[in-house]
């Protein structure tokens, strides 16, 4: 029986949910059904959509939004926030070390080939220090809960974590639909995120930048699955939304083509992967990037956020070493636990994983978005057999984890409420200090019993409240 965050096994509301539960009990079901439709209309009208690759007909989809908030107490949050901050500081220290002295390798804590043979490791970054020494400016730490006080980090998204626009729009929608709930509960603000993001990016402008730093968001364009978010963030920050074709390297600066000529950019918040960033350095066929931007970067004339090469820190093969990494750089035990992980590259682990395939979640080391994974307990016999073959053929491509009994939060269905599994992605901004936005994005698996929360696989979202207490 999974831990339900709203109700005790006796059906009583837990502390953070007391006010909400009372309010909910006084609501009329027909009214709430109408509100659910209102919410969908708001999202559709605003065009808050994402693209699912490989579905030509349904090129723009809505992420289902559930009207029941996920509520976290201030006490629970403070604990989580400390753990996240420790982890994010460790990630940055790790990246700095990996691209400079490599002390963690010398100390024998991480195998050298795991780093140097990893495609996410960029030799171009060796010996280079990004402005302010910050590698991961924006981090989304995926967290799951299994009990009252049991939280695990599932993944560190240190490249270009997405979803923050949903966090903001979900809150906006809830405040529009149920203003009374926000007088009944003191909910910590998330609305400052765009302003904080802009401040944080501007504070890391290159040292040569004079005057107010010019920030821009780089998007692959309107066909990208997260385009809505890119335009939303640029709009909210009041900065230009640029595509690769708008930018050129001129006189050692990255400049954008305006109606009055070319103007220099100081900080680029790029939502384009490393591979596509610079066709002269990385993939030569990339049409999304800016030829020569890496030279400008290395000359210290532009800040790229997140820095190229940060992917080495959130790689699934590295994940299992995170407890050692945290301890190595912070000198303290991790405050937040890792999910126990079997590295299939190790023969003993592989044997164990193959023997227990029905109990484990097996993931591709380089996969994302819930693709290329096997959820043992819910997979069919045929799926397991096929997956076992793939696994045995290339064990180093996989890691395995126990199937966690993810906590549930109720969602609103026509018959009332029903528990569904959730995870949480808080957003973290790093400059000379670490800022964590209270709450984050709660993703919920809408299918009964499902553990896959990804929006591309039938997941929805909820507004996430951290209470003042």
């Amino acid at each position, binding site marked *: 029986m999974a831990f339900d965050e709203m109700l005790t096994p006796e059906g009583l509301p837990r502390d953070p949910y007391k006010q909400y539960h009372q309010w909910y009990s006084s609501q009329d079901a027909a009214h709430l059904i109408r509100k659910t439709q209102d919410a969908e209309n708001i999202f*559709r*009208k*605003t*065009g808050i959509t994402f693209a699912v690759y490989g579905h030509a007909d349904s090129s723009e989809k809505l992420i289902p939004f559930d009207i029941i908030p996920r509520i976290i107490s201030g006490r629970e949050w403070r604990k989580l926030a400390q753990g996240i901050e420790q982890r994010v500081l460790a990630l940055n220290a790790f990246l700095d070390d990996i691209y400079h002295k490599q002390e963690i390798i010398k100390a024998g804590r991480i195998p050298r080939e795991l780093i140097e043979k990893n495609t996410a490791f960029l030799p171009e970054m060796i010996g280079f220090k990004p402005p302010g020494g910050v590698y991961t400016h924006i981090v989304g730490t995926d967290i799951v809960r299994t009990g009252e006080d049991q939280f695990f980090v599932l993944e560190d998204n240190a490249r270009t974590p997405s979803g923050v626009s949903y966090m903001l729009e979900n809150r906006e929608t809830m405040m529009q639909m149920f203003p009374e709930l926000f007088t009944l509960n003191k909910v910590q603000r998330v609305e400052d995120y765009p302003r904080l993001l802009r401040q944080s990016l501007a504070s890391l402008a290159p040292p040569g930048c004079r005057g107010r730093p010019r920030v821009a968001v780089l998007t692959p*364009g*309107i066909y990208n699955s997260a*385009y809505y978010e890119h*335009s939303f963030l*640029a*709009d909210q920050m009041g900065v*230009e*939304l*640029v*595509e690769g*074709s*708008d930018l*050129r390297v001129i006189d050692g600066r990255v400049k*954008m*083509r*305006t*109606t*009055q*000529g070319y103007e220099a950019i100081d900080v680029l918040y790029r939502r384009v992967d490393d591979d596509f960033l610079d066709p002269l350095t990385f993939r030569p066929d990339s049409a999304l990037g800016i030829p020569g931007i890496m030279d400008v970067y290395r000359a210290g004339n532009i800040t790229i956020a997140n820095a190229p090469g940060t992917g080495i820190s959130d790689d699934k093969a590295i994940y299992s070493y995170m407890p050692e990494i945290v301890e190595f750089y912070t000198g303290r035990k991790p405050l937040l636990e890792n999910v126990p992980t079997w590295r299939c590259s190790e023969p003993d682990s592989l044997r164990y994983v193959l023997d227990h395939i029905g109990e484990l979640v097996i993931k591709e080391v380089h996969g994302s978005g819930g693709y290329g994974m096997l959820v043992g307990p819910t997979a069919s016999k045929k799926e397991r057999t096929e997956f076992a073959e793939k696994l045995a053929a290339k064990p180093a491509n996989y890691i395995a984890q126990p199937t966690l009994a993810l906590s549930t939060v109720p969602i609103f269905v026509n018959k009332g409420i029903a528990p569904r599994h959730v995870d949480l992605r808080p957003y973290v901004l790093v400059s000379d200090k670490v800022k964590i936005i209270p709450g984050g994005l709660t993703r919920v698996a809408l299918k009964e019993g499902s553990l896959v929360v990804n929006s591309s696989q039938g997941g929805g979202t909820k507004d996430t409240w951290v209470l003042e207490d």
Partner: protein
Amino acid sequence: MLGRTANGLYWMFRYIERAENIARLVDAGLRVSLTRAGSSDEDWHGVLESAGVREAYATVHPQLTAADAIDYLLRDTTNPSSVMSCIEWGRNNARMVRTALTRETWEATNEAWIDLKARLANRLKAADLPELIDVIKHRCGLIRGAFHGSMLRNDLYNFSRIGTFIERADNTSRILDVKYYVLLPSVSQVGSALDNMQWEQILRSVSAHRSYGWVYDGDLQSANIADFLILKIQMPRSLAYCYEKIVSNLDYLADTYGERLKAHETAAAIRSSLKRGSIAEIMDIGLHEFLEDFVTRNNQLSAEITTGYRFYE
């Protein structure tokens, strides 16, 4: 602002304008087929011609029928100028420049797309056409209204307006050119019933059948119709009106940016020729020749704006 943003706004508003104009053309075509005894599917030739898609139509449909022509003009997405294509492209451009639009303008555009996509999903029934055409005009009007009511009067606004008027001028001149022969003085001084019908169709294509009456006391005369659509500055779809606007929008950019471009000279020259001209002179040059020359110059101006303001690299 980015050159690409100027380009996106310019085309967004060209497409929205075009969608509305195509809907008007279909409306005028339907009107003719309703009011004229013995009307035939052949009447749609002129409509397809005015929309600039007659040849493209023939590659898809070997025969000309009213139903196929209407389908092609309103909902066929292989026709780049169909209402559905225009709305789709208008919205795609709007998405691209979303950060430059007010929330109201974006939502009006997005909702137009959602609504029309649903209404144009299946082949249309004749009985539904009048309502559908109203909805198209209504949706385009909402976009324009939201834009007018909420956008700052800055360079974004002026690039959008230039797109609207370049497209509108192009459209009006094409409508006139397709029917130029029915407007020639040599053909008829006093309108026959057939002339009257043709003339009314022209006026309806630009939603001007009522306003014409106000300006010229209701008497349909070919020279007055040409005068109204080409030279009358009070008529919001006339070439003269479009160029008053284009010149003032371009002047705003010149003042703000502190730089006059080739496009400014071209636009001013076209405007002054429309301002000085009389319909008698135009008929002397030849109406068809005049219109052909106008379309070329209008396109040339569009190209100069595109390069001058760095729409593309």
